[in-house]
């Protein structure tokens, strides 16, 4: 092929060749750079975690009941992580997801526990949670897109305010849900699997389609990949950024409903540490913190890996603190690995 390429493509060839040299270094890294290869790597990582679980906890880990426990735990943080993936691909970050979740849980359970609302329909609860999530996301998005506040600061402020508001509304008390229809709905199982697992799968499926098959997804990648180019290409980047944060806010609302149903409570302490776990899941799944790249399938694996590790710690009676320690290490390892992959990619 090098024979009949005209001289004008010299540069292209040199660049392509230079890239190939950079890629030759390590076949494993080269494989991990392709999306199929990365997903395969995540499957392997998940299998390794499972083997560790089987060895250390034996039957208690391998039982199908335990698998369902892992899945059920994964659903709430999973839905948040999927929303987070969109925001990260779009070049942003959201530290307030846990706080938004707490606020949504408190707000909707407050309505549901008030005397006058005793016999209110469960749909009210659902709508309130989603509206609170979307509203907080809207504030984040407006601050970032139109206010020019960096995402880190805008959402850090939201983190503090939303949790504060949740404490005020609930008076720092745990609120018990008294809407039987709602709890019953989430208690339902289809072929032995809880409804929240199906809900998570549905969110993931919709998200995958949204990212890979719609204009919204393509624009998200463009906005995160090169903001200026996206703007000059005629994409309304500000509106799109707002939509991304609203989308994540709605995901927090959905996650809040799942958590409220699972625990039958709303509390201002719900969702603590979710921001870290959601960002970590997205990054492990291949999302680039500088934006422009990420994968829903990858994020789902990231969530499952974290949920399984948590489960193994619980089964082995290890402390929460040890768990935190390992989590931090995993995140650093994932980012280091990703930077090695990315830096080779962008070299010209």
């Amino acid at each position, binding site marked *: 092929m090098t024979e009949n390429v005209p001289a004008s493509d010299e540069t292209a060839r040199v660049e392509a060749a230079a890239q190939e040299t950079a890629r030759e270094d390590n076949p494993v890294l080269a494989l991990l750079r392709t999306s199929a290869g990365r997903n395969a790597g995540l499957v392997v990582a998940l299998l390794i975690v499972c083997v560790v679980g089987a060895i250390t906890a034996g039957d208690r880990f391998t039982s199908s009941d335990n698998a369902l426990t892992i899945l059920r735990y994964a659903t709430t943080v999973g839905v948040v992580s999927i929303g987070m993936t969109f925001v990260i691909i779009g070049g942003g970050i959201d530290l307030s997801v846990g706080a938004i979740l707490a606020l949504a849980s408190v707000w909707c359970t407050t309505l549901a526990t008030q005397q006058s609302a005793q016999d209110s329909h469960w749909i009210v609860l659902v709508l309130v949670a989603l509206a609170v999530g979307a509203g907080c996301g809207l504030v984040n998005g407006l601050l970032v897109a139109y206010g020019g506040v960096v995402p880190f600061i805008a959402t850090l402020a939201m983190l503090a305010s939303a949790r504060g508001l949740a404490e005020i509304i609930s008076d720092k008390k745990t609120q018990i849900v008294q809407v039987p229809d709602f709890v019953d709905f989430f208690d339902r199982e289809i072929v032995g699997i809880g409804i929240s697992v199906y809900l998570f799968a549905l969110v993931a499926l919709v998200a995958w389609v949204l990212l890979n098959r719609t204009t919204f997804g393509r624009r998200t990648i*463009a906005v995160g990949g090169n903001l200026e180019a996206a703007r000059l290409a005629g994409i*309304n980047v500000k509106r799109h950024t707002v939509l991304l944060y609203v989308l994540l806010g709605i995901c927090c609302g959905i996650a809040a409903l799942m958590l409220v149903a699972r625990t039958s409570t709303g509390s201002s302490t719900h969702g603590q540490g979710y921001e870290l776990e959601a960002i970590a899941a997205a990054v492990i799944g291949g999302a680039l913190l500088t934006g*422009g790249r990420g994968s829903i399938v990858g994020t789902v694996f990231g969530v499952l890996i974290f949920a399984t590790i948590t489960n193994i710690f619980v089964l082995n009676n290890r402390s929460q603190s040890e768990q935190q320690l390992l989590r931090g290490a995993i995140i650093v390892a994932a980012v280091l690995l990703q930077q090695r992959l990315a830096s080779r990619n962008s070299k010209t």
Partner: protein
Amino acid sequence: MTRVLLQMTGIVKEFPGVRALSGVDLDVRAGEVHCLLGQNGAGKSTLIKVLAAVHQPDEGTLEWDGQPVSFGSPQAALKSGIATIYQELDLVPDLSVAENIFLGHELSTAGFSQRHRANRTARELLVRLGHAEISPARSVGSLAPAGQQIVSMARALSRDTRLLILDEPSAVLDQEGVANLFRVIRGLTAEGVAVIYISHRLEEIRQIGDRITVLKDGRTVATGLAVAETPTADLIKLMTGRAIEYVFPPRPSVAADGPVVLDAQDLSLAGVFGGVNLAVRAGEIVGLAGLVGAGRSEILETLYGARRATTGTVSVDGKQLRRGSVTSAVKAGVGLAPEERKSQALLLDESVSNNITVSSLAAFSRAGFLDRGSERTQSSKLTASLDVRPAGVTRAVRTLSGGNQQKVVLARWLLRECRVLLLDEPTRGVDVGARTEIYQLIRRLADSGVAVVVVSSEVEEVLGLADRVLVIREGEVVHEGPATELDESRVLDLVMEGKVA
């Protein structure tokens, strides 16, 4: 006879599948300005990277000051006295001039920086460079590009540099800056420092160069040519292998009563430009000529809505655009190919196809769902008709050469079938062969009824391509007329007028 400072013989550098350098010879004498000429892709950048030890050569020898050497790392080359000033200056904008000069080899005692000594030494270096007016304590970010370049050179001199490599130093400078640069270079060579000077501008080489080495396709085709004795025509022949001029497509006559597509009335942007009236008819190419910083790019960006005009209106086909709204401009059928292709136009890691369709996503979607098959078919058709190489719309845009990347940007607006096309430096970083294709493409677009506005720093390009030319000086239109009534020297007169006095 002056001493030979550097002697490179038979340098070969291979990347898998391509020989970037296949036998380069270069000898540089102390105290001379040695010019390196060659088209894009001839191997100039690779060669200076070998010299700066960023790349290691696969074959060939390097003699430094009479001794065979091999530099293991860029630091080793620096230590021996070889300093490179790349096109993109590597300065830290928030540090002071002195801090930048001594970055990496700070003057310190037991870890405490000796700021006074650093400032004093920096001042001496700046005086030596003839720029005593730059204060060592000033932050580099507040300096103009010309000043920043001086700081880079001071940094090189702070290390006892004996060979200074300048990669297209004039690209960021205006006429005056170039004159200053030349004064500095002459001062350095008088002290015995050797300079390797890379530039595309032959007239600069005439002024500053002593000898010339010409590279073509990774080979030295001529070395040690005395500048004074080599006619320009010979140099062009050596660089291209044929004697060529830029070939511009013929101009069909524009119907004088053709409909006005783009109409800007009294457009201004506070502090940048003012009172611009511009009407472009269907099928017409209007060129904006002027110096860098005269406001040419800003006019384009304001027409496009990427900058919010202070006064004035822009209409397309009689419909007024919303001020400061790119979305409104794009909807009305305006397209922009911006100056900085990589940072302003392309999603480098995305495919060619995705880059072409990014402005027309709505046309490929039903209820928000993309028809990816049709995206690819349409993109393939366009890339085939524009002869984008290598073919294949799924490869990442990053792997394409400058000219082909530019074609991808043009394809984006072709796909939208836009009414107005704004082109900012459409051939920057594009080599000679691909330039001709891009000129033809632009003319073809105009012939299909598009109104085109072109900005270019190369007067020859504006005159050759445009039907009508607006000359911009310091944010004002100082001349407007048919391109055929102007020549290069007249335009330069207009551009410079008032600046001299």
